[in-house]
């Protein structure tokens, strides 16, 4: 019989609804569960039989904070189905869109959802009142990124412009230039916000497990790459990461991960080689930190933390590093785009056919996979969507159970705070997970 049951109903300040339940046996937490509270939307089930062109529209409705990555991953997977090769300009615009998505999601999570835990505030509005300058910077960074999403994607939430083959409408050149002009200020703000997160007191924690992210030899992978895995158990020799690691194609990797249905729980738990794994900002930094842009890399040096690390609380700091990196990367891409003569840019033409395609893109919270199989008229025969939160939920539960066994003597209130702090450090998106 469990000695003590800890239950936290309706976790706030995160995307989607969930509760926590832990069981302490003889002073040690033996179990920790996240109980998700979103209804089954059956997105994949309803997509079967629909025309392929609807998939980006419908799958973006999975999540209101990261609709762009669903939209883009659907488009990219369908382009694999039909063997479409889009132009480099299309790829650059999509990269900017995805980077901007990461920025606005991270800025919101870092400052408004996670920071109150570190500074001991229940109410975000109160905290923002105490740190008005920083709050304004977080809002300004977010605004810069969401405006960019609007200009390239056509709308911030549930984007519109992307389609198989390219863009329905190209962004206006002079609009893009405005963002390049503003990028210097935004970069400075991102650096200041990041410093705030560097100087926080992170709980000490370690646990075994895998960290999985997209990786590319030439750039910090967000839009494309192969899957790489950092195993905390074997790879304690920290030199073996980045280029030396062996990559796996996304289409092969999805066959190696298992989705497990649970009783009374709508989110399937995902494992790789029978073990839970982490994906998200910390996995990306752990694997790809040597490809960070200049300012982000410099900042990481000053943090004095030995990456790769298995302390998942550092996911918060990793997001702060990415905030800087993504602003720099967008600036680089906007500079590249300045050289382009838009009159020459065209969408790829293609023929709808029977086919299969898997695509993976790094969402703010980790690698998102979409798979589609179409018939010769372009109707969807099969599909699967594996979201980042579904992937790391088992790891979160595992980390929570280990973390809590270290806090046997805390008061209930303090323990509850620690639980919430860890959950929010993972930045779960329950809406995505329960699609």
């Amino acid at each position, binding site marked *: 019989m469990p000695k003590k049951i800890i239950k936290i109903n309706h976790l706030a300040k995160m995307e989607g*609804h969930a509760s926590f339940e832990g069981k302490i046996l003889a002073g040690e937490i033996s179990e920790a569960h996240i109980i998700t509270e979103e209804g089954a939307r059956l997105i994949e*089930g309803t997509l079967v039989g629909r025309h392929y062109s609807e998939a980006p529209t419908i799958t973006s409705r999975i999540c*209101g904070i990261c*609709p762009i990555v669903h939209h883009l991953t659907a488009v990219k997977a369908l382009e694999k189905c039909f063997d479409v090769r889009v132009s480099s300009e299309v790829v650059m615009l999509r990269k900017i869109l995805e980077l901007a998505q990461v920025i606005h999601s991270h800025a919101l999570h870092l400052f408004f959802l996670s920071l109150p835990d570190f500074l001991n505030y229940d109410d975000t509005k109160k905290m923002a009142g105490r740190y008005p300058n920083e709050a304004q910077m977080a809002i300004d960074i977010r605004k810069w990124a969401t405006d960019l999403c609007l200009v390239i994607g056509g*709308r911030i*939430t549930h984007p519109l412009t992307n389609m198989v083959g390219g863009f329905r409408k190209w962004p206006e050149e002079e609009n893009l230039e405005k963002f390049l002009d503003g990028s210097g200020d935004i970069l400075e703000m991102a650096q200041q916000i990041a410093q705030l997160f560097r100087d926080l007191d992170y709980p000490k924690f370690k646990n075994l497990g895998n960290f999985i992210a997209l990786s590319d030899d030439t750039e910090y992978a967000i839009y494309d790459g192969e899957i790489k895995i950092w195993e905390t158990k074997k790879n304690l020799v920290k030199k073996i990461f980045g280029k030396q690691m062996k990559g796996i194609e996304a289409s092969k990797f999805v066959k190696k991960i298992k989705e497990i249905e649970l009783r009374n729980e709508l989110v399937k738990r995902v494992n790789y080689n029978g073990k839970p794994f982490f994906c998200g900002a910390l996995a990306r930094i752990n694997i790809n930190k040597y490809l960070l842009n200049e300012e982000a890399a410099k900042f990481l040096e000053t943090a004095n933390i030995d990456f790769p690390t298995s302390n998942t609380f550092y996911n918060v700091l990793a997001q702060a590093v990415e905030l800087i990196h993504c602003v720099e990367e967008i600036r680089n891409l906007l500079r590249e785009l300045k050289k382009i003569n838009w009159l020459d840019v065209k969408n790829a033409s293609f023929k709808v056919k029977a086919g299969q395609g898997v695509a993976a893109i790094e969402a703010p919270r980790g690698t998102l996979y979409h798979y589609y199989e179409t018939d010769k008229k372009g109707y969807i025969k099969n599909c699967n969507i594996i979201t980042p939160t579904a992937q790391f939920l088992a790891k979160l539960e595992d980390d929570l159970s280990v973390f809590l066994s270290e806090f046997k003597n805390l008061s209930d209130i303090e323990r509850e705070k620690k639980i*919430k702090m860890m959950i929010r450090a993972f930045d779960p998106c329950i*809406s995505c997970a329960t699609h």
Partner: protein
Amino acid sequence: MEQQKLKVAMVSLTSCEGCYFSLLDLGNEFLEIADKIDLVKFRLLEEKEHSEIEKYDIVFVEGSPILKSNFDELIDLRLRTKKLIVLGGCAHTGGTYAMRNHTDKKKACKYVYPKTNKKVFNPNILELSKIVKIDGVIPTCPINPREFVRFMSFVLNSLSFRIIERPVCYECQLAQTPCLLKMGLPCFGPMALGGCDAPCPKAGMPCQICRGPMKEVQWENFEKKIKNIIGDEKWEKDFNEILEIFNIKNKIIKSKE
């Protein structure tokens, strides 16, 4: 003398929460509105659970009831609020998740949950007005945050908010957006209730009428014209498929009668 601020709750049923993120995207403008009201429940910003006996002046509800607890919460909120305003496509029309109503929903559930499907609660997705009395709508998937600002400025001045009956085409023309219908794309703009500021046609995406049709539409005229442009066969297919995306098909047929 300072007036008592309106007690407002912002609640999501099963949803993507995109309508609330659209509000946060307003940035400072949203925080200014939040200052003028007593925002007693908004889980994206606050941890505290307010007492069960709390009474609200306005409750905004986003999303679809897909869990049993979603239904309970909706009914409970109705009993505790003076006004219940539905926010966004899901709450207003049933939205995207209602696509299961047009297919074999048991089969769809079995596809996603091959082992546990029999235990999964799998209701038809309903617009909220079919479950409780509602006092207002801010439509669109996701809501147009500007429309929310307009709504709040009416409410804060004790005026009642009303959506003006004019089509999405009106807003397209104001913005000088090239007509997609004329290009041969199946755009429902002429029939669709405006107020969204026409983001879709502006982005080259035909209107899929997520806000629903205007009250008095001459459906037959539109159908005749659109068939001329895109052809009979394509029209039949588009009509059936596109109008299912935001669960609008049944609403159109009604206005046709």
